[in-house]
């Protein structure tokens, strides 16, 4: 087996998810595990937690240009630890990788980067906030005001972000349970960024503005052994309310769901397993796989019954770890837009 393939199919839990999760990453092996009622401490917790196996800084944005044409954008930095420590130099057991994507109504661009910790090629510093890998970065004087850039061989972007609301904590005050057997993560978001900047596309630069959503999550044992993958929704309704909901698909055709309702001012309500439901209503054949590209999403407690449809069905992240991630539009008894991530459709 080839080294690169080995790296990404066997050891990174995310890769394992994408491959149809093979039972790896369930044992903490000396890594710290999330416990309920953690007191978050900022800005430190914006920085990395090397004693946890996996961590990410995950930003998605729904954008539009001056002519009203829609775009989506993704900037993600992952950290995956081979050992629960950090060491200086090439001996570092911390591996960083990052994904960037831009989705237009008819094209999807995606690219990735890899780096080892310990040498300065990639990392995250909490204060002032600076997350980087190669020439990509997400940085600013603090977490509320950020500059972001990423480039691939044929696209790139250069963006300014300003938060207009508070941080939002999922699950029980940031302790997010991922399965009935207790797998969990720390999970908070900043869903209130206003974003503006330039997309560099093969057709030329394009000025865009919109809304961005940043997820912070870290854990050491993120999925249970019987779980196949997830469908994750971040929706922003036109009335200012937001909904984060995910479903973890299980082998027995059942699923585990969780959702956070975010009021326009940032007030949250969380919903345990079973309240938030999603049903695929349309699938598309993408890169040889059947992937749902239209969903019926319900949260009866909030009177939500909407259809979530991909803006561009072809938003397949055809990278070392492959999955679907792209902008969506919301119609039904509420309208809006958002982002959808689906893994495990290998």
């Amino acid at each position, binding site marked *: *087996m*080839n*080294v*690169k393939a*080995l*790296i990404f199919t*066997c*050891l990174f839990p995310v890769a394992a998810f994408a491959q149809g999760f093979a039972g790896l990453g369930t044992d903490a092996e000396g890594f710290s595990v999330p416990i309920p009622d953690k007191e978050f401490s900022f800005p430190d917790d914006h920085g990395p937690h090397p004693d946890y196996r996996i961590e990410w800084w995950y930003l998605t944005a729904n954008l539009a240009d001056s002519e009203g044409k829609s775009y989506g954008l993704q900037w993600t930095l992952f950290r995956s630890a*081979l*050992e629960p420590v950090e060491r200086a*130099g*090439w*001996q*570092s*057991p911390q*591996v960083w*990788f990052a994904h960037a994507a831009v989705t237009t109504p008819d094209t999807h661009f995606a690219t990735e980067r*890899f*780096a*080892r910790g310990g*040498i*300065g*090629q990639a990392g995250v510093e909490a204060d002032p906030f600076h997350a*980087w890998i*190669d*020439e990509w970065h997400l940085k600013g004087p603090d977490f509320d005001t950020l500059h972001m*850039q990423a*480039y*691939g*061989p*044929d*696209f*790139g972007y250069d963006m300014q972000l300003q938060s207009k609301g508070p941080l939002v904590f999922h699950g029980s005050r940031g302790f997010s349970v991922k399965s009935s057997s207790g797998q969990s993560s720390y999970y908070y978001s900043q869903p209130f960024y206003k974003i503006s900047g330039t997309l*560099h596309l093969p057709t030329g630069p394009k000025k865009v503005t919109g809304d961005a959503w940043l997820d912070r999550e870290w854990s050491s044992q993120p999925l249970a052994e019987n779980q196949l993958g997830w469908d994750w929704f971040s929706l922003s309704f036109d009335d200012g309310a937001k909904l984060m909901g995910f479903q973890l698909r299980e082998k027995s055709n059942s699923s585990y769901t969780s959702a956070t309702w975010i009021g326009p001012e940032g007030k949250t309500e969380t919903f345990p397993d079973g309240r938030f439901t999603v049903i695929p209503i349309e699938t598309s054949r993408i890169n040889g796989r059947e992937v749902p590209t239209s969903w019926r999403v319900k949260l009866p407690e909030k009177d939500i019954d909407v259809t979530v449809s991909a803006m561009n069905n072809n938003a397949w992240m055809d990278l070392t770890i492959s999955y679907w991630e792209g902008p969506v539009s919301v119609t039904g008894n509420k309208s809006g837009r958002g982002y959808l991530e689906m893994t495990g459709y290998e």
Partner: protein
Amino acid sequence: MNRKFSTILQALLSHWQRKPLQLVTFIGGLALATALWSGVQAVNSEARKSYDAAAATLGEGQFDQLVPRVGNTIPLVTYIKLRRNGWLVSPVIEGQLNGIRIVGVDALTSPGELPDLQLSDNTPLQDFLGKGTIYANQETALALNISVPVQISSNVAPGIAITDISVAQDILAREDLTRLMVANTHSLNREELAVIAPDLRLQPSQQSADLGELTESFHLNLTAFGLLSFAVGIFIVHSTIGLAFEQRRATLRTLRALGVSLISLIIAVIFEIFTLAIFGATIGILLGYFVAAALLPDVASTLSSLYGAHVAGTLQLRAEWWLSGYAMALFGTVVAITGKLWQIASMPILVSAQPRAWAMTVGRGRTLQAIIALLLISGALALLGFGKGLVAGFAMLGCLLLGAALALPTIIEKCLGFVQGHVRGVISQWFLADTRQQIPGLSLALMALLLAIAANIGVSTMVSSFRQTFVEFLDQRLAPELFVRIEDLGKSAAVEAALTANADEVLLLYSRKASVRGIPVEIDGIRVGKTYRDNWRLLAAEEKVWDRLATGEVIIANEQFARRAGYWVGDIVSFAGKDLLLGGVAGDYGNPLGQIILGEKLYRELYPDDRAFRFGARTTDQEALKMAVQAQTGLPDSAFTNQADIKSFSLQVFERTFAVTAALNVLTLVVAGFAMFTSLLTLADLRVPQLAPVWALGLSRRELGKLEVLRTLVFAAVVCVLALPLGLALAWILLSVINVEAFGWRLPMFLFPADYAQLLAYALLAAFLAALWPAIRLARIAPNTLLKVFAHER
């Protein structure tokens, strides 16, 4: 298989039962031909596999590289700075340990794929990233001899051990990087290299991929040998099949008369011959495997010492050799059998079954053959005048050899005819006439002998000329008694001072890599001194070249660069923004790279930041000098090399280089001798009706036997006389045409008469041995066999 068919087949096969020796020659000939061919192919393909593995392991050839302009280290900060500015580069650290090239890579950023290391699916990633496992093939692993765990992986190129960069840094005890591989795609937002890392130079991938080109001629050489032996083997097969058919005319006629249809007969014959051919080819391929296994270590050391290309010393039996071996064997059989099948098809059923003077008919096309020979030789001359490149060189070689071979029967015939006109005596007249009459039957074997002897003369002339030149060259170049090489450029001045204080003369060398006219060159700066003036012989030079080199007025280039770039003494060479007069061309045997030599003054002017890092010192006491320099500078032992060591190493390289050629030489001569033997054996049976009347006229069997041996020796002698000039022509082409194209230098040709005499004696001995058995058989032939000839006379 139906009964009728098996009966036909049995009738055909019974021939071999009665003539087991013919069966042995048929199968043996084909096996020998296939063995040499597939052996050489095996060596070639094994070597190519190794280059490919090396290219994949090192990323050379596939990817551009960033390399330091000076020295061989890149600091980590430079790597990070490049990455942080959009350069998709991947670090490589390289060094030698116990003669093995340790390559440390970063699996995370490596562009493209690393070689398949055959890790099992459950190998923890930690084992590769940082925990200290090294991957190498079996041979390399044994040679490596270190405490770090070594994982055997046959896909890693020979002579290379691959590991994570952190492990390599540990083993090699260095913090920096050696080079950076540049991915084929790059970020939209990439800064200029000159801004980010002005100390680095982008080396395009094709420049580092010249290994294949350099080694190509070597492989072509081997292939030519393989084809030569194959051709000789096919001669053997052809004559054996011819004989078998002639002797079975009776059987074939009887079978036809008994009602066997023509088509069944042809199918049976094809089936029989091809079955035997496959059997012979199988033996041949297996033999070829052993030939290859025996040659490979020498080939491997040749390639490694001449070009730095590593080839695995162990062989794997691969499907493609079986295929190519069978293909060649069956092709040869088809060539040999086609005419015979035509004869069967057109044979009237009731024609006499007596063997005709089969051999006689072969000669009908001699005029045509002579014309083709003339055309081929003219072709060779035309190529000499107008041809260009390595392929033209080999084509010229091929035309000349083939032309000479085809002309051989005509030449022998004319010579004997001339002699016959000038001798008296019945026996002499008969002997010469009979000898001429036999030329057609022996011509293939004689051609094979001619080619083998000529190839031997040519190649041994080349090798010996090379050796003589090379030894003289080493004596010139290795004049300094002690060499010092430093890694830390900061010590340059201190080393120079220490050497100057203790040695009789100090030669220092600045060096950097560059590209001039698209040719990768090493630019060297030297301090002109007595040693250069006394020892260096230039191939061509302007007046007072050394004085003018010292002042920076002229430069010197090695022959490789001069020939490749098309410059010669008196031309202006433009580089580093200057137009410089080429004042001399130096022979530089054994170096595949171009080289430009500047005087120290000019070098320092052009590259003020460079420091000398190689030094030569003249002294009468090397040990004392070494100790003095060590005491003053703290250099490790590894920084010093003795002149005697280098010289013996270089000579060793040389001897190994040509061990392969020598072995192949012997093999072709053996095959040629065998061809001669089988042809004589074939003729011996056919000639009984021709010898019987001579015997009846009073010549004893013993005398006839002696005459047979003499005849063969006459043939061999004529062949030897012709082979000498042909071999020398071959040597000239090898030295003056092929060598220049392949290696970039022309070798002076020396003659070695004693060697040639020895070789010709061997050839005559081989011919004598080949003739001995048929002659003894003739001397012992039962008189009644000879009498029967008259009884059976039509």
